């Protein structure tokens, strides 16, 4: 009788273990998928930021006729020799300014989000024994969420303007001022410049707002992954699926909102971090670390 009981018990244990593996594998898959989505969203936000910086140092494109006109002006100069012709050749092409230092800083930020997602690559395969490791990742999840929030605030505080668009407007105004003497025509032409300035204002707001929206989406996903990590050991598969179902629509709804409402969303995230006792403690630690770093600088 005893061997039969022991055999049945071992079968029950094996089935229960396999059941547990399959259930918690879904939880692990959910954490992995949300962490990947967080990384992808953070990269999209950083793409926007990189684009805004590049645009803030861009040149208006030059037509061939403009280049020829410039070279003709140089050819008419008094001094002309080997040096001049080589310099004309060099200056006849506008080379973009090198943004690699800024991009390097962005890359440093990108790496943190990539590393975060990479942590969970093998979580579904190690879900039964990785509970403690998942718990350890909570602090960095909160930190990266707060960082996404801070990047959105940074763009709001120090917005970017397209330099090439500004140059075109300024040039248009200067040419009108230089060549137009008839007051009634001058007014009409300057109205067109004013329209350009108005359009640029709208485009500038939109470009900065889009970047803030990407940061807000990232912060929403970051908060969700932090919640999944916080409750990884106690959440059921249904709880996790519910959280994912609630998060995805809220992320997609963020596009197209105005800056204030996006910043409001970012502020909600800050409140959510501060309202959780453990996260509030992490936030205090983050603030202390940041203060220490700034003292060192």
């Amino acid at each position, binding site marked *: 009788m005893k061997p039969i009981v022991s055999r049945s018990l071992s079968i029950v244990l*094996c089935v229960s*273990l396999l059941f547990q*593996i399959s259930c918690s594998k879904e939880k692990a898959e959910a954490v992995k998928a949300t962490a990947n989505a967080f990384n992808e969203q953070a990269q999209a936000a950083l793409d926007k930021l990189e684009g805004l*910086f590049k645009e803030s*140092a861009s*040149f*208006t494109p*030059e037509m061939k006729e403009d280049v020829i006109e*410039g*070279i003709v002006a*140089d050819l008419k100069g008094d001094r002309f020799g080997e040096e001049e012709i080589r*310099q*004309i*050749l*060099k*200056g*006849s092409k*506008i080379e973009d*300014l090198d*943004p690699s*230092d*800024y991009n390097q*800083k*962005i890359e*440093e*930020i990108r790496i*943190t989000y990539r*590393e*975060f997602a*990479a*942590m969970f690559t*093998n*979580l579904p*395969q*190690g*879900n039964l*024994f*990785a509970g*403690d*490791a*998942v718990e*350890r990742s909570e*602090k*960095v999840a909160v*930190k*990266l969420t*707060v*960082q996404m929030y*801070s990047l959105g*605030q*940074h763009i709001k*505080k*120090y917005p970017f303007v397209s*330099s090439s668009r*500004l*140059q075109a407007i*300024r040039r248009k105004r200067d040419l009108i001022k230089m060549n137009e003497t008839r007051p009634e025509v001058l007014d009409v032409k300057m109205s067109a410049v004013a329209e350009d300035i108005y359009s640029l204002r709208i485009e500038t707001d939109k470009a900065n707002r889009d970047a803030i929206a990407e940061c807000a989406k990232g912060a929403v996903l970051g908060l969700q992954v932090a919640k999944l990590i916080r409750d990884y050991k106690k959440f059921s598969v249904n709880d996790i699926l519910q959280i994912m179902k609630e998060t995805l629509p809220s992320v997609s709804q963020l596009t197209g909102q105005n800056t204030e409402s996006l910043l409001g969303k970012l502020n909600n995230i800050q409140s959510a971090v501060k309202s959780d006792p453990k996260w509030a403690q992490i936030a205090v630690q*983050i603030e202390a*670390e940041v203060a220490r*770093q700034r003292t060192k600088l």
Partner: protein
Amino acid sequence: MPEDNDAKMLEQLTYAFGDLQYKYRYSTPLDRANMRPALEEAFGLYQSYRIMLLGGAVITTEQDLEEMRSIRDQIDRAATTQGLIESAINLAGFLRPLLI
């Protein structure tokens, strides 16, 4: 309206850089070649200041990267252990009918 000294400083650097950029863009090629070093210097200042301000929003450190790599190692080790156990369970299931 600038809200703080950083914003004021950024504004001044942006004006100086933008002004030089405009002059450069609409100069003749010969003048451009002469202006390029000054333009690059102005851009360098603008870029450095932007990087400094961006740094204010960055709160992750090298220690965080090390921590994430260490957590990843821990999860990878858990996956290896679990893989071995799952293989053992599967093997036991396969052998059971042969042993009974």
